């Protein structure tokens, strides 16, 4: 809510605080000031300001209240007039095109003179002729041969509102010559009202918090109103059908009122508070609402009389009937349902209760008699209504968050008082006050000891009571015990244990968070429990970064179409269930992803032209609905994506080769080794997104934990990727966790030298390296410690259909140096086994 400084100052003494200090007080009591808009007042002194300031200051020597004594026609221009202006020091002739001065043109000396806001030469103000807010400096200039250097200002030029249709005509009592900033300079605090502080969505409410924080008295609004007209009794009635939805309904009546614009200062304040001034009657309800926090409504009384066939109107509050409609004053016709509470009369619906009035019954140019409604409504019901009908208003904003019924009567009185002051007429004696459901203002009992244990403070019971009293709680102190009665203007204090927590917040807030000491935790440490899954994720991240990969953090939301791109064209995509979002921000992100590979492909695609080497990994969940379960299985996955050059560009090596299957395999080997996974094997496999001949399942101890391979050429065409092949892997982290070891055996560093030997064997093309290796291990026995493939040869020196594999073998015994004879024996055993099992021959 936007709160003008001068308005707040009517309820609490703050004239000794500068704008900055006041904003600090407000923020630290829970009225967070998001912005301060200067509307005339000077920026506070000092270099450091803790708030964002906008707006315009009116230096006292440049902006003053002036009077127009005479309006004269311009000799050469119909659309301009010349004004004889007195600024308290001198007389000037000022040129203006303001249409609201034309009516005074040539009518001789004005009695009384018009009071206006006057800017002297050199003043900096907003350019009224430009859109938005652009500053300009007043300089001497000639318009149609008439020299002019000063200006009679519009609201836009002064930064009060965007109004530039005419100049401001101030109230008659504005003192000529007074600096404008002294007369009506202001600053508007834009306060972010917390949901539990709706009592502060009003000037009075904010003033109360400021007063409590400063320990100063709060002035009560003057609600006394002269009631000289005939009694309202018998001339209006109220019938409440459901008191839980409508705890209170108050009516007041004013007759013979004159509809006209409100006094200028009222209009200015409404503008500053963000409401458009309409006329004195509507303005009175809005002004009273802003002041008190209780929304009010003005009905044309004669219209209601008419509908009742001349009888006294009866206001009936009830649920809407099925199929009932109502056109609100914004011109929208709503289809209603019984969830919606209405204000009606005997002839039908009048307004959406607590939300918006109907078009027909509102105050109109012929209105002379006004029935003022002040009511209170069930906030949950109002919330349902506004979310159902997609409608909002200042009234709904307040009622949907809870307004205490005690305010309804004060509100009606205040509005009647303003109508009388601004429009004349007579207020009918008495009010119709139907109050079937007063709230139970909670009584909260607490002890100083409990407060101090919870806050870590040492405050006495009396001090606590004093703090609460500043917020209008009524407190009784009995030794350590405090009994606090909630004041009748707030609905945020609960009963029992909850009430105590609510009151604790009030005590700490007003006592001051800054006064509560700061201490380290004195709690015993809880039982230490480690989540092994999270620990492994971090280990994995470190391993993959060490292996040269860039980590990604990606969106969980996607679309089935996006995920379908990972299948080759023509593939029969299986129908799967997604977690679907009811209100997606875009159709592109309307489900929770089921494939981490689809995410990886999109990110590779995005970056494909940005770098010649891409090497990524992502750790994150996919979301799999589970039959019979409320929540999906959030399966934690690891994905790896590689494409492009193996080496980074370097001046000494011009052509780098592309990464291949074995680059990916090396990374997976590396990460499995880093987790001390054993019994690793790769098994030929199939996967719709991967090349059928270049796909492997990653097996650990006979179980698949993931898949890896080259992106299927047909799938590749679904993405805008470079020529280089793309390699992908996906690993199920729950499976990986089962086989990872944080404890592992460390072998002794050998005390005897190893024997190294090379062995090249020729086998059929179809024999895999793994098959040959398995035989080597078996033949070598315990003494064989390491087998490393170092060459594969196809060509002239071997027969067609054959290949030669060259291995380097390391033999070692823990307790002695192996003799040539021993090694020779092992070698012979290996050769025999190779021949027997694979038909392999030694390459000569």
């Amino acid at each position, binding site marked *: 809510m936007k709160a003008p400084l001068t308005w707040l100052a009517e309820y609490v003494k703050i004239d000794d605080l500068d704008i900055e200090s006041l904003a600090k007080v407000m923020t630290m009591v829970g009225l967070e000031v998001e912005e301060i808009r200067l509307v005339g007042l000077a920026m506070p002194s000092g270099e450091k300001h803790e708030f964002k300031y906008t707006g315009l200051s009116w230096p006292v020597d440049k902006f003053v209240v002036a009077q127009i004594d005479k309006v004269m026609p311009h000799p050469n221009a119909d659309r301009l007039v010349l004004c004889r202006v007195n600024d308290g020091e001198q007389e000037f002739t000022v040129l203006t095109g303001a249409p609201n001065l034309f009516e005074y043109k040539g009518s001789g000396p004005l009695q009384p003179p018009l009071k206006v806001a006057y800017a002297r030469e050199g003043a900096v103000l907003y350019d009224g002729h430009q859109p938005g807010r652009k500053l300009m400096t007043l300089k001497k200039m000639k318009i149609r041969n008439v020299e002019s250097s000063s200006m009679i200002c519009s609201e836009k030029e002064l930064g009060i509102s965007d109004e530039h249709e005419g100049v401001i005509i101030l109230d008659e009592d504005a003192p000529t010559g007074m600096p404008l900033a002294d007369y009506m300079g202001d600053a508007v605090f834009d306060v972010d009202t917390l949901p539990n502080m709706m009592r502060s969505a009003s000037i009075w409410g904010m003033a109360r918090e400021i007063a409590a924080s400063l320990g100063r008295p709060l002035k009560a609004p003057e609600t006394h109103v002269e009631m000289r007209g005939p009694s309202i009794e018998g001339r209006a009635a109220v019938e409440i059908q459901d008191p839980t939805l409508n705890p209170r309904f108050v009516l007041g009546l004013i007759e013979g009122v004159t509809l006209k614009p409100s006094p200028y200062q009222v209009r200015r304040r409404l503008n500053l508070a963000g409401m458009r001034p309409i006329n004195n009657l509507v303005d009175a309800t809005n002004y009273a609402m802003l002041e008190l926090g209780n929304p009010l409504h003005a009905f044309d009384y004669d219209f209601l009389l008419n509908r009742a066939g001349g009888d006294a109107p009866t206001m009936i509050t009830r649920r809407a009937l099925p199929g009932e409609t109502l056109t609100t004053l914004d011109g929208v016709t709503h289809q209603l349902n019984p969830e919606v509470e209405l204000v009606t009369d005997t002839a039908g619906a009048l307004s959406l209760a607590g939300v918006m009035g109907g078009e027909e019954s509102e105050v109109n140019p012929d209105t002379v008699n006004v029935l003022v409604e002040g009511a209170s409504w069930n906030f949950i019901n109002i919330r349902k209504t506004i979310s159902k009908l997609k409608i909002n208003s200042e009234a709904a904003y307040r009622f949907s968050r809870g307004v205490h019924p005690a305010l309804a009567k004060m509100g009606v009185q205040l509005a009647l008082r303003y109508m009388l002051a601004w429009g004349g007429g007579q207020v009918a004696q008495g009010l119709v006050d139907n109050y079937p459901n007063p709230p139970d203002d909670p009584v909260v009992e607490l002890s100083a000891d409990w407060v101090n244990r919870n806050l870590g403070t040492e405050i006495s019971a009396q001090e606590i009571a004093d703090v609460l009293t500043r917020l209008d709680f009524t407190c009784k102190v009995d030794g350590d015990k405090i009994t606090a009665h909630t004041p009748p203007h707030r609905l945020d204090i609960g009963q029992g244990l909850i009430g105590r927590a609510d009151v604790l917040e009030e005590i700490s807030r007003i006592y001051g968070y800054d006064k*509560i000491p700061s201490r*380290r935790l004195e709690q015993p*440490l809880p039982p230490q429990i480690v989540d092994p899954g999270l620990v492994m994720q971090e280990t994995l991240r470190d391993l993959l970064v060490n292996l040269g990969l860039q980590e990604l953090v990606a969106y969980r939301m996607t679309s089935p179409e996006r995920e379908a791109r990972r299948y080759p064209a023509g593939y029969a995509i299986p129908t799967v269930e997604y977690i679907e979002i009811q209100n997606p921000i875009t159709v592109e992100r309307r489900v929770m992803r089921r494939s981490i590979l689809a995410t990886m492909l999109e990110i590779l695609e995005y970056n494909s032209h*940005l770098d010649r080497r891409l090497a990524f990994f992502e750790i994150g969940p996919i979301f799999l609905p589970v039959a019979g379960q409320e929540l999906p299985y959030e399966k934690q996955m690891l994905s790896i994506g590689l494409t492009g050059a193996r080496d980074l560009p370097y001046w000494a090596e011009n052509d780098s080769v592309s990464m291949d299957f074995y680059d990916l395999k090396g990374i997976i080997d590396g990460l499995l080794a880093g987790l001390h996974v054993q019994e690793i094997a790769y098994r030929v496999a199939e996967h719709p997104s991967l090349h059928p001949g270049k796909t492997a399942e990653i097996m650990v101890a006979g179980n698949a934990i993931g898949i890896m391979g080259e992106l299927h050429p047909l799938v590749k065409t679904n993405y805008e990727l470079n020529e280089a092949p793309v390699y992908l892997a996906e690993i199920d982290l729950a499976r990986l966790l089962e086989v990872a070891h944080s404890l592992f055996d460390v072998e002794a560093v050998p005390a005897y030298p190893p024997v190294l030997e090379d062995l090249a064997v020729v086998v059929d093309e179809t024999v895999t390296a793994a098959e040959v290796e398995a035989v080597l291990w078996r033949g070598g026995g315990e003494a064989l410690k390491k087998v490393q493939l170092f060459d594969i040869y196809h060509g002239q020196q071997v027969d067609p259909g054959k290949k030669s594999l060259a291995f380097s073998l390391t033999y070692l015994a823990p307790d002695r140096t192996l003799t040539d004879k021993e090694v020779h024996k092992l070698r012979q055993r290996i050769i025999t086994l190779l021949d027997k099992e694979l038909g392999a021959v030694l390459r000569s």
Partner: protein
Amino acid sequence: MTRKVKELENLAQIQQDALRALADVVDIEALEAWRVTHLGRSSAVMAVFSSMGGMDKELRPLMGKEANEVRQALEAALEEKRQALEAVALKQALETEKLDITLPGRPVARGRLHPLTQVLRHINQIFSDMGFQVFPSPEVETDDYNFTYLNMPPYHPARDMWDTFYTKKEGILLRTHTSPGQIHLMRARAPEPIRAILPGATMRYEQLSTRSEIEFVQVEVLVIGKQVSFAEMKGTLDDFARCLFGDDARTRLRPSHFPFTEPSAELDVGCFVCDGVGCPVCKETGWLEILGCGMVHPVVLEYGGYDPAIYSGFAAGMGVDRSTLMRYRIDDIRHFRNNDVRFLRQF
């Protein structure tokens, strides 16, 4: 006697000739040639040794001694010359072997953690040092866990504070904050004390812009015990802020409202960019909003399985994306999930 003199003169001559020749040697190759000529098997001095067999018996020891001295002198001269030549050669090499040290180094493909992970790890580390443990919690949640158990029954006004993505399944939504993790953890732990953090992805229905995302990372902090006080919350979070932003970081707790904590506060840290003078990062306020916090609401304790008459606690929640944005003065929050390599490789 003459024979003896002659032989000795001969030796002196050999030494003199050799040394004269050595003076002319200018490089290592010539030195090697000199060695072969003057100290090699067929050199003059060696010839003296081999000719000693035919000498008088009494002459032999003297000649042997003399010849040895000559040989040692030549060897010493050779060594001296070698060192001199090597020094010259090294000097020359050092003077001529010059690299263009401005040429680029051979690049190593370095892996990197995503910036959000880097900052999250920093946060985790600070809390770990204070004895907090890390727990996971689900990202798709029930309405009950996300709202009701956090003291926001249906139609509670505070629900407006979170713009929610609902799923098409009744009562299931994408969690709008990490706070539902509090309930999961409490229910798993009650009545044991808790000192934990719960990091994770959260989602909110927002229009994507430079400052707002639909997905972002949060960290939830939760402490439950028999007499946890507001003062302890203040101390813990002050320590955290100083660890994250530096020893001289100024903090303030500002009243706020969260339905699941009471009293509630926002923790502000003095802007580290402008040092409190005011800048666009702190929106001219000199303060940066770091996290929301408060004492766990009795209703939440009850839902979590703790008796609020006995137990109390505090909770805090912070946005990792926001902290990262501020820390590196990043202009657009969408960079994080775009994963543009030109952005990522700067971290």
